[in-house]
């Protein structure tokens, strides 16, 4: 409970700091809060599972894992993006919104009631609509915010209709009740339709095909730090919530849905990887790459016994790599440009940036012994023998994925050179380096 309280009050506190003109305290405060949340998680870990507050939330092991992963990602996001956020001049508003959305993200990990789920999604999303559009003078940012908002609220409506139907069938919003109901009775048409609609709502949030179209546009248009936030914490929270719901409460009905999810995974992998090969804008390419990872994340639902470990590990591995990539992306993007050729000769200008980017990209591509490989490994080994055909598709699309990641690496290490000058953000050295090492050797952490 204290965890949620901290996260909820964080935004308020940030706003208060603005009032008292204490902007420089914001980042430390946020960091301290994140640390406190992590500490709280650790304390909670020792306690037995407890359901709190009239079956609204449950701080079970899954939730705690989710919270800690999201908090780690958020903290990492904060330290890498702090300078960029500060540079906008609106750090208080932006940080407050981030804090609110973080609160929503945490709620996504521990709800046990559909009301909580709905509120969590909205608390997560509504600040994001604003954040995506937060570059107020920039038309692209506006466009991305608008698209995200409109499509997002449609998706919410669909999700809500699904919730309504499920409520109609089960007479409860409580996940335990629903779970019991579905264990015995899962062919009721309301449940079927309701589940599909909820699935669509979530598929939108994690940008699985064919509900992914917003993602590249929004990721590209939004300011890069926000894109980084969306691609990691938000996506992670959405898939954790989805996993909690589908692998937990709706477990009984999953057999009917496995086929659909497999098809969605296939479509996502093919479309995202294919489209990414065509991109010249690295940010947009990373967006498509993020979609393809959503395919992997979604496929954890197909693993018999629902490998939550695989999911968590993948989120962490992908999230860290992705944040590193977005950080470099932001540095290059703000100084030279977002296009591929902006990266030309980066290895000479800044070997550190290029190396970090390379490690991040290779990890996302799933090259051993980086964490990304182990993420993919757990998923594929879980699917092997049950969805062997899907693993083959995963493998083939991974090769395609390798292609566009390599393209960036080639440009960085290739011989051509653009004249633009580049100074790297020296303070990032130790942080990025440490995290990159974590990415390299994280594989024993979460097993």
């Amino acid at each position: 409970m204290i965890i949620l309280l901290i996260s909820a009050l964080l935004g308020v506190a940030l706003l208060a700091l603005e009032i008292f003109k204490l902007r420089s305290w914001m980042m430390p405060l946020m960091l301290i809060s994140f640390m406190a949340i992590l500490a709280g998680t650790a304390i909670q870990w020792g306690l037995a599972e407890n359901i709190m507050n009239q079956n609204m939330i449950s701080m079970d092991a899954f939730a705690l894992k989710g919270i800690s992963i999201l908090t780690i990602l958020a903290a990492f996001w904060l330290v890498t993006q702090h300078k960029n956020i500060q540079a906008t001049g609106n750090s208080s508003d932006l940080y407050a919104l981030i804090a609110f959305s973080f609160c929503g993200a945490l709620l996504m990990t521990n709800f046990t009631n559909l009301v909580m789920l709905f509120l969590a999604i909205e608390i997560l999303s509504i600040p994001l609509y604003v954040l995506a559009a937060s570059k107020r003078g920039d038309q692209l940012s506006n466009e991305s915010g608008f698209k995200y908002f409109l499509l997002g609220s449609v998706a919410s409506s669909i999700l809500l209709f699904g919730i309504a139907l499920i409520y109609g069938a089960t007479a409860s919003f409580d996940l335990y009740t629903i779970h019991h109901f579905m264990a015995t009775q899962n062919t009721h048409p309301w449940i079927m339709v309701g589940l599909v609609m909820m699935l669509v709502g979530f598929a939108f949030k994690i940008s699985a095909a064919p509900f992914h179209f917003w993602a590249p546009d929004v990721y590209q248009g939004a300011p890069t730090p926000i894109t980084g936030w969306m691609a990691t914490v938000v996506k992670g929270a959405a898939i954790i919530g989805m996993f909690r719901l589908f692998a937990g409460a709706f477990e009984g009905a999953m057999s009917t849905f496995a086929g659909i999810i497999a098809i969605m995974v296939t479509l996502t992998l093919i479309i995202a990887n294919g489209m990414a090969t065509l991109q010249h804008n690295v940010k947009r390419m990373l967006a498509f790459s993020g979609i393809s990872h959503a395919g992997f994340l979604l496929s954890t639902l197909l693993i018999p016994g629902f490998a939550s470990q695989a999911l968590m590990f993948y989120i962490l591995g992908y999230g860290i790599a992705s944040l590193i990539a977005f950080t470099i992306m932001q540095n290059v993007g703000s100084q030279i440009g977002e296009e591929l050729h902006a990266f030309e000769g980066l290895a000479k200008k800044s070997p550190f940036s290029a190396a970090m980017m390379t490690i991040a990209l290779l990890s996302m591509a799933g090259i051993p012994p980086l964490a990304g490989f182990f993420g993919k490994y757990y998923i594929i080994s879980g699917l092997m023998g049950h969805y062997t055909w899907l693993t083959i598709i995963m493998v083939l699309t991974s090769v395609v994925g390798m292609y566009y990641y390599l393209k960036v690496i080639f440009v960085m290490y290739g011989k051509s050179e653009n004249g633009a000058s580049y100074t790297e953000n020296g303070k990032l050295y130790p942080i990025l380096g440490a995290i990159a090492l974590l990415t390299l050797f994280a594989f024993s952490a979460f097993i």
Partner: protein
Amino acid sequence: MLTEYAFWLLSFIAVFSGIAVIVSKNPVYSVLYLIMTFFAIAGHYFLMNAQFLAAVHIIVYAGAIMVLFLYVIMMLNLNSIEIEKRSSIVKLLAVVASGLMLVVLAGAVPHAEVLIQQKESATPAGMVEDLGIALYRNYLLPFELASILFLAAMVGAVYLSKKNLNETQN
């Protein structure tokens, strides 16, 4: 019997004005039709013994949300701007898609007739005190979180609307 007629009448109004929202050329008309729909929906709530909800519905939707809409339309002076340029193929697709949607969802309506009022609960649901108890006891946490939501929305809306005092352009 009366309630039955009321149901059909309100339903008709809701659907009719719902369609009218879409087909009206002038956004102001759309807003007015939407308000009509909301009133019809509020009537339904009333029929279903959810009087408090009906009242809140009117206040929130008709009173706040739609006024906001109207205000924006007026401020942006959108009365007569829009000229429909949707290609007919998109219109056709819109009809087909929503039609299919209707058909598919209608398939979910059970054939067996389930009376809407199956159980008579001891205390009549929908009264203020029931809702109050539920909201402040069982649903206290979501209730508190709703305030976070509002706060977030408020900050966001203010942020987007305020002049760029210290934002470095570009």
